[in-house]
């Protein structure tokens, strides 16, 4: 109990801050911050597994997040039958062709000795394969994109409940991580960082421009929800009664019957959106707790000890007979899969998939700030980092506004400097993140809650 005091203190302060937002701003804002904090926490756990446990740099978090989001679309959207009949066969044929090319290349690689001729043969297989695939898929893609382009124009998904996509998102992201890991994990740390950053950009480019699969920048809106809809809630009997009970004190003060009804309606509308957010919070909390238990177990297991040994001295671990390459690949896949879950959760919460919104600053570098600030190698630290940084990211604008008003109090309201500063308040969040990261790196390089390994 005693030695966990700093963890408990840090989390209580964080919760206190969110509750303060609830009291002073609104419970709606507080809950949406809390939900995104939970999603960020899942992402940081993924990044923390890779960086904190194994010392692998993954700057491709954005790509895995987007793949998770794509899974949400492909699982939950109802299939578009016309599009399937228009171009489905071509797409399936192309898919088989891709598999065929991969198998052919593998066959050539395995069967023949390394030589110049082999390289040319592989290049020829790939290039001719790409040309054939383009010829096959082009009419299909055009046909699919012509099916009611304003509303669908893509193949749609499987029409299953969106919750399943959290698992599928993990598989998508893990699959991509397997491919990336196979080819790029041999690189030195900073090369790996750049390579993953660029690969994630490629992933985003594909998601943005393959309209037949993802609708691209036209966005997919109105995804299914695991939680009830506000509109339905507002008409449900038990919910109205519940709200009435909650606000009975305030309602009792209003004597006029029609005014009282209006006030109740207002409470119901507010209450419904709070209730929906609470549903999401519950779901996300379950995911975070399950992942936390699993990652903690892993950290203290023999496997976790081996990972730390590999991180701290790769050559020694290798000499002890540990397969460093295999373990690196495993942990890269696991971490990325967790990020994929977070990506699917994010799209589930928003109810829409906007490929244009995936930007490295928000989905890669911010997550890294969270991991570093929170404490890499420590799961509680990483989660706390997600909470703290996301909280500041959202609340930076009000804090910035307050600071600007304070420092320019002597100036008139129309003074150009004051107007300019107030206009640029949204960018104070970058400043805050940057300075926070620099200060933490300098004075507390292990993060707020540093890694603490004890043998249990």
């Amino acid at each position: 109990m005693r030695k966990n005091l700093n963890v408990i203190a840090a989390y209580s302060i964080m919760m206190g801050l969110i509750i303060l937002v609830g009291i002073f701003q609104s419970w709606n804002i507080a809950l949406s911050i809390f939900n995104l904090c939970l999603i960020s926490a899942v992402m940081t756990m993924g990044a923390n597994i890779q960086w904190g446990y194994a010392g692998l740099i993954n700057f491709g978090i954005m790509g895995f997040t987007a793949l998770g989001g794509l899974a949400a679309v492909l699982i939950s959207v109802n299939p578009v039958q016309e599009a399937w009949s228009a171009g489905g066969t071509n797409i399936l044929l192309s898919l088989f062709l891709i598999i065929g090319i991969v198998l052919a290349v593998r066959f050539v690689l395995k069967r023949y000795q390394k030589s110049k001729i082999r390289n040319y043969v592989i290049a020829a297989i790939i290039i001719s394969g790409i040309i054939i695939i383009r010829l096959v898929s082009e009419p299909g893609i055009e046909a699919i994109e012509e099916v009611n382009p304003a509303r669908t124009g893509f193949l749609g998904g499987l029409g299953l409940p969106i919750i399943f996509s959290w698992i599928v998102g993990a598989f998508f992201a893990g699959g991509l991580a397997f491919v990336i890991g196979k080819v790029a994990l041999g690189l030195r740390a900073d090369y790996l960082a750049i390579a993953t950053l660029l690969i994630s950009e490629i992933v985003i480019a594909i998601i943005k421009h393959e309209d037949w699969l993802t609708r691209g920048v036209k966005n997919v809106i109105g995804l299914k929800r695991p939680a009830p809809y506000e509109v339905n809630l507002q008409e449900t009997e038990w919910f109205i009664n519940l709200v009435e009970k909650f606000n009975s004190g305030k309602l009792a003060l209003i004597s006029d019957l029609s005014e009282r009804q209006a006030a109740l309606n207002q409470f119901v509308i507010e209450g419904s959106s709070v209730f929906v957010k609470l549903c999401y919070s519950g779901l996300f909390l379950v995911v975070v707790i399950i992942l936390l238990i699993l990652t903690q177990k892993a950290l203290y297991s023999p496997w976790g000890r081996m990972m730390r040994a590999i991180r701290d001295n790769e050559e020694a671990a290798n000499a002890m007979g540990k397969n460093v390459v295999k373990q690196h690949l495993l942990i890269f896949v696991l971490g990325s899969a967790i990020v994929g879950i977070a990506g699917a959760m994010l799209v589930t919460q928003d109810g829409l998939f906007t490929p244009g919104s995936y930007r490295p600053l928000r989905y890669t570098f911010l997550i890294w700030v969270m991991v570093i600030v929170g404490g890499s190698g420590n799961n509680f630290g990483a989660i706390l980092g997600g909470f703290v940084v996301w909280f500041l990211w959202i609340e930076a604008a009000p804090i910035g506004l307050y600071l600007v008003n304070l420092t320019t109090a002597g100036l008139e309201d129309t003074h150009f400097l004051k107007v300019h500063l107030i206009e640029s308040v949204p960018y104070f969040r970058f400043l805050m993140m940057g300075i926070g990261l620099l200060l933490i790196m300098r004075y507390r390089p292990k993060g707020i809650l540093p890694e603490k390994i004890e043998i249990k």
Partner: protein
Amino acid sequence: MDFLNAIILLLNYIFVPALAYGSQLAIGAIFVTLIYGILRFANFATGDMMSFGTMVAILFTWYFQSLGLSLGFLPTALLAIPFAILFMGLYMLVIDKFVFKYYRLNKSPPVQLAMVSIGVMFVTQAVVRIIIGPSDRRFFDGEKFLIRANEFKEMTGLNEGLAIKSTQVITIVATIILVSTLFWFLNKTKTGKSMRAYSDNEDLALLSGIDPKRIVMITWMIAAILATIGGVLYGLDKSFKPFTYFNNMLPIFAAAIVGGIGNPFGAFLGGYVIAFSEILLTYAYKKFFMYVLPESMEPDGLIQLLSTDYKFAVSFSILVIVLLYRPSGIFKGKIL
């Protein structure tokens, strides 16, 4: 005649734009490679440092314009570059003193320095956005075209026009001057040689009496020159927007690594490799084949290898391929 038309077509749509874009990338890539070679970390603040320099240049341009100063047919921004370089250098030295110096003296691993540079990236981004705002700005003035497409058509009587923007010529000329001076400096002067020695083997350089503080300071000054000029040239040719500059970091990294990181000449060529492959692979060759092939064989489609949406993806794929098969780059990296 058709053959000439085809060549002019390629010149107009591929060669000239790629040469200008490649020069801009090349300057940025030399900046990255210099920091990597001497200060030994991947600088993720590259794009934002360039946007900081460009921002100062724009502010000075506006000031000069309000004074009524101009360079005639040349853009006023050229006049602002020296002042912008001063500010940029100052900014870099301040950052180095308060941020990077500590880690350099502690001999922190490169990864940690790269993380720190992300912090610098956030701060610089905030500074730029707070001062000048996030919107798109054009600050080009003076004569826009050196040769206009229809003038060229009239002059030569060809079907295809060749338009050369003055910014493209300025970019290419400035790059040639800048890069040749830099190579002369690195290869012929004593300071340049000591920089190369420091990059090659730090301890040995220290033993031979090379002052690391001086080397670091000079590196930052050169970096300031490169960042500012590279940024201003890009901004003149296209436009200035902080977000675009941040994104430009990616092809610049690609160029630096493709050329062999730590090797300025490799970075210089890497810029052109990236630019040309981006444009060659995403250009629609339909018109070209219409000129070259006889009428009966005219193509139906656009004959485009990849859609222009994948422009960035091309350079990144090249980078990934190079990283996998030749991690030291086309020209062996890590010698300055």
